[in-house]
């Protein structure tokens, strides 16, 4: 298994509060890795360390080591990191002042990168196709992204993240604000995405981890309890806490 991201002794704090208590973890390339665990266990904080968004919160800091493709992520400029590591949030958040077309290109336009019109159109079409949204919106690219349904908005946000060709795509409970049908579409999409990008998806939903993930990490109280191929972790968990969580005893 080829690795894309590795952490050693990763700790994260909000002020004095220790959220992550030393995480050693390796994320395999071109696979879907799910991070599951009960509420407040640090799942979201963990992936927010991977694109240095954790530090965007006042009083928040990170200790320990993270490598992205062998490079020391903590010594890189956060802005540079975020252009390589895309993120999709819990609640769909298309920019309300922009059209669908502009939303997909936001990663370029907001960074002042000028593209030729043809290039723009190619990127928009490609990203929307990858996000499985092209057929639904190709005739209304000039409409505002906020007119779309919740599930479509979330796929628009996925297209926006994919448009800048990230190495790694982080998804923070991407379906928790969606109805079951929209959830299924996003889950199917995640399965296709791993051909071109590595996906790390945070979920509090055990069944979802089972459906979409090649590898699953179980996080509990800021510690990585168990990590391995999803089929192995689900059938023969090594740690009693993993088993209890999987069988619904807590969480």
């Amino acid at each position, binding site marked *: 298994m080829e690795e894309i991201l590795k952490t050693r002794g990763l700790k994260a704090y909000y002020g004095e509060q220790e959220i992550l208590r030393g995480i050693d973890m390796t994320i395999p390339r071109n696979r879907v890795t799910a991070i599951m665990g009960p509420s407040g266990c640090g799942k979201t904080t963990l992936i927010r360390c991977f694109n240095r*968004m954790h530090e965007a919160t006042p009083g928040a800091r990170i200790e320990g080591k993270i490598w992205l493709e062998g490079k020391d992520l903590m010594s890189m400029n956060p802005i540079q990191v975020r252009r390589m590591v895309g993120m999709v949030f819990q609640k769909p958040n298309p920019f309300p002042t922009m059209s669908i077309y502009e939303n997909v290109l936001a990663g370029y336009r*907001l960074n002042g990168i000028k593209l030729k019109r043809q290039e723009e159109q190619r990127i928009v079409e490609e990203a929307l196709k990858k996000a499985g949204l092209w057929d639904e919106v190709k005739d209304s690219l000039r409409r505002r992204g906020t007119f779309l349904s919740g599930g479509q908005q979330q796929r628009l946000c996925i297209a926006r993240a994919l448009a800048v060709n990230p190495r790694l795509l982080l998804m923070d409970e991407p379906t928790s604000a969606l109805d079951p049908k929209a959830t299924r579409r996003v889950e199917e999409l995640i399965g296709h995405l791993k051909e071109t990008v590595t996906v790390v998806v945070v979920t509090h939903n055990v069944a979802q981890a089972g459906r979409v993930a090649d590898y699953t990490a179980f996080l509990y109280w800021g510690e990585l309890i168990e990590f391995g191929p999803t089929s192995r972790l689900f059938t023969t968990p090594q740690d009693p806490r993993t088993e209890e969580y999987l069988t619904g005893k807590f969480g």
Partner: protein
Amino acid sequence: MNKNLPRRLGKDRAATLVVFLLAIIPMVPLFLILLQLVMKGATSLNLQFLTSLPRPPGETGGGVLNAIAGSVILVTLASVMAVPTGILAGIYLAEYRDKILPHAIRVAADLLQGTPSIVIGILAYAWVVRPMHHFSALAGSGALAIIMLPVIVRTTEEVLVLVPKDLREAALALGVPRWRMILKVVLPTGMVGVTTGVLLSMARVAGETAPLLFTAFGNPFLSWKPTEPIDAMPLVIFNYATSPYPHWWRQAWSASLLLIAMVVLLNIAARLMARKIGGR
């Protein structure tokens, strides 16, 4: 419970009626003012009134073109000074909320907003009119700008704070530097609200008289120069209403009606902008 229902519905109707009547009361003075203005002012409000300069006392006719142009110039100059400054200060307050300096600025803006406008007029007199040795549009618009500033600062801050954190994070997660995030995402998202605040502050100063009395001073001729004294709608109303000529009194009424119409138009524009926010 069912036995009580008719009684409770009756109470509900009575309470609704009381609240409705109380809500009508604040409308009464406004209605009376408008009625009075239309009755006294509409007769002299004609095309000539809008397009000609004042005539000497004793002659009838003439208009307030000098004051209309003056008010437009004064408010425009004041906006040029106050709008960029106020919006930038508002952005600062919205983005750096937890430090001591922003807190101090916020308190200062609130104090400035509560300062009587005559005091600001006196300051403009001391700071601009005295050194220049004469009254000027510049001094008047400076005073108006100081009155506009805190309104713009505070509305900009309030609107920008309401821009959801999700959108900021969406931009940051795309590798957008913070200053670009503020200029390209936060400000455009709140732009309608900011514009509403600017229009309301313009409406507010368009009717200010006190800070203009000894700054812009008034001018019976058409003047476009910022360094010269200039007339304004509220000044004309004040000067004509306190004059001994009945013809000027009638014109003061007409000027009042015109000024109210200008302010109402600005307010309606602000409302329309505000409705656009709600529509999003």
